[in-house]
């Protein structure tokens, strides 16, 4: 067992606030995910996700507003499309798609956020450290 290193990209308006909500409610979750705030999940280019893996991240989370609730109307629609393809591509390259978590967390869903962090950390822990894959 090892401690997975995870980077989480959170949109400023829903998911980051969801994380704040979890914090305000003092919900406990594992410390493995380091959060990077972006204005919208649509800002996250696939290259950014891949660069995380290159730096040795064992998992990457991309969290945005729920479909239909995007602060920028439909920025997360592109996220949905890009990330769906990126997950497939990871598979085609022998990287488990489970290493890339794409989900939607609203500002109110502190509990969902905390649960998601915990379950994703566990999910990644079940896989080999990424450095062992990337040589």
């Amino acid at each position: 067992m090892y401690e997975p290193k995870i980077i989480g990209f959170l949109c400023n308006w829903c998911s980051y606030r969801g994380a704040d909500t979890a914090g305000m409610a003092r919900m406990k979750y594992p410390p493995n995910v380091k959060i990077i705030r972006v204005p919208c999940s649509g800002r996250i280019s696939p290259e950014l996700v891949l660069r995380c893996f290159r730096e040795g991240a064992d998992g990457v989370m991309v969290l945005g507003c729920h479909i239909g609730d995007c602060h920028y109307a439909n920025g997360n629609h592109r996220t949905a499309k890009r990330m769906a393809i990126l997950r497939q591509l990871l598979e085609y390259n022998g990287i488990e798609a489970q290493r890339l978590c794409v989900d939607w967390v609203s500002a109110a869903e502190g509990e969902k956020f905390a649960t998601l962090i915990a379950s994703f950390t566990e999910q990644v822990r079940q896989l080999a450290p990424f450095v062992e894959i990337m040589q």
Partner: protein
Amino acid sequence: MAEETRIGVYICHCGTNIAGVVDVGEVSRWAGELPNVILSRDYKFMCSSPGQELIAKDIKAQGLNRVVVASCSPHLHESTFRGACVSGGLNPYLFEMANIREQDSWVTTDKLEATKKAKALVAAAVYRVSYQKPLESLFVPMDPSVLVVGGGVAGVQAALEIANSRRHVYLVEREPSLGGHMAQLDKTFPTLDCSACILTPKMTDVGKHKHVTLFTWSEVESVSGYVGNFTVTIRKRARYIHEELCTGCGICWEKCPKKVLDDVFETGLGYRKAVYTPFPQAVPNIPVIDRPNCTYFIKGTCQACKKFCPTGAIKFDQQDELLTVKVGSIILATGYEVFDARRIPQYGYGRLANVFTSMEFERLTNAAGPTGGKVVLRDGVTTPKSVGIIHCVGSRDVNYNNYCSAICCMQSLKFAHLVQEKLGAQVYEFYIDIRTPAKAYDEFYQRVLKEGAQLIRGRVAEVTNEACLPGEDGKLIIQVEDTLIGKQRRIPVDMVILSVGLQARADAKEVAIKFGISCSVDEWFIEKHPKLDPVATMTDGVFVAGACQGPKDIPSSVAQGSAAAARVMSLIGQGEIEIEAATAVVDDGTCVGCKECIPTCPYQAISFIEYVRKAYINEALCKGCGTCVGACLSKSINLKHFTDDQLVAEMVGAMQTMKLFEAS
């Protein structure tokens, strides 16, 4: 030569909020060794005045050109610390925040792990801040006109406040008259003053105000632009009445032969004509012709109203009009809907005649209502001798709405008082908890108790007309577990009132998208901050007031109306508006003109310059979402303050720290 990067790092204790879990001294010591960090301090409360002064002083004394504060969420204090940087003479965009409270000390159990995580987050911020560039904000003039959507009490209040300070208000109301739900109510709790009596003067003030343009029977069609410069298209639906010619004399609806069940204002208890104003005090006092029910529109005959109208104001050929107005800010006060009691079949609404909803009861007891204020059963004559009032119908219920509708307790107690006062009937209230927190509310509760209402604590299981015990014949029986005595009870009554909850309007989501704001899971509009910015939204220049933001009573709605007006006035007072500096820019040296970005922009801020065949972003329209950045394959678009370099540096900072801990 490039200027040397000099970073100051400040670790906030936040009392014990952070310091109780994270070893702030250790984080501060460790941050001091990060590249380019000139000084690193920890301090009890960074957001306090001395904390802010510390930053300003260090910037000047130590020549800091970058500042990192590790404390709470940037949503709380980013602007505070940016302000501190500015007072120290530093561009606010050379500041970065690490969230070690909401994302660390409050959520991490293991102190050692929390300290490690704090280090990683601080390192990420330190790495990032080196890449940050000073940004200058764009200023655009603020249009002093205001759009208020919704003519209920919150909207009316907001419109009045703004108009009284001589700024122009466009007030749009979907129904034929202002008034909203409040116009339907009889008495208002806890003072029991007549709703119409206190609302009507406000409505008339707005109606005749020289700084208000009223659009009733109208809806907002579309909104474009941004704070300070919105362009709003309003659909003014055809009333088939010439508004300037109409004097509101009422001859048309007297002469109209077509009676229509009024299921909006009179909740289906009364009738109106096919040409009507919803109630006598309507503002404007101009009727509308109900096209689907008007004989002329159905059969082409009748025209009674037209024949008798003394001013010739009836215009059957009127068309919907699309009007465009320019405003600088918008207040949404679109109100609520009541919960549909039919959704709870076991309460019998719609099936058992004498089960009423709270809104129906308001009309029954209202002197201007269909029964002239006589509280009678559905047969129209019988006076009930006993009345059961059920609280929380559709509220605080996992099957329907999880939240408390805030008004039902007081409303139900008010009903108890009115029933006893008017009929002397026995009243039973069925409640889960009694919530009477505002001024003079609990006193009212005590008063109703003294008046003899029986309060039974328990969620009602069923309302039925199937008698099985003596004394139940011909009655409605309320089956409930009285949780205070721990027994099942059957209470026979003549009339049941369901205190139905409030819920977001069916089209709330649609409206939210139109105005670029967001909705909660329950579809209430989301405010910018639940405590500190309750009437602003995430979209600059768009504010919310009243029950569209969540269940609210009249005092709170009025307060929010005023609050939203105050926020708008403060914007107008600034004269010009600072536009988000973190916008996207196209590097026209590398743009290949593939147009991939153009349709991705939710704000139509990107255009294609044909003669150079390159994309161009209008910074005033850009909201800085960065979706175009994610779409640009040649990486020719960059989002200021969220550049690839900055995000990569932030990530590398976090990763390297994590790897360091892993190795050790």
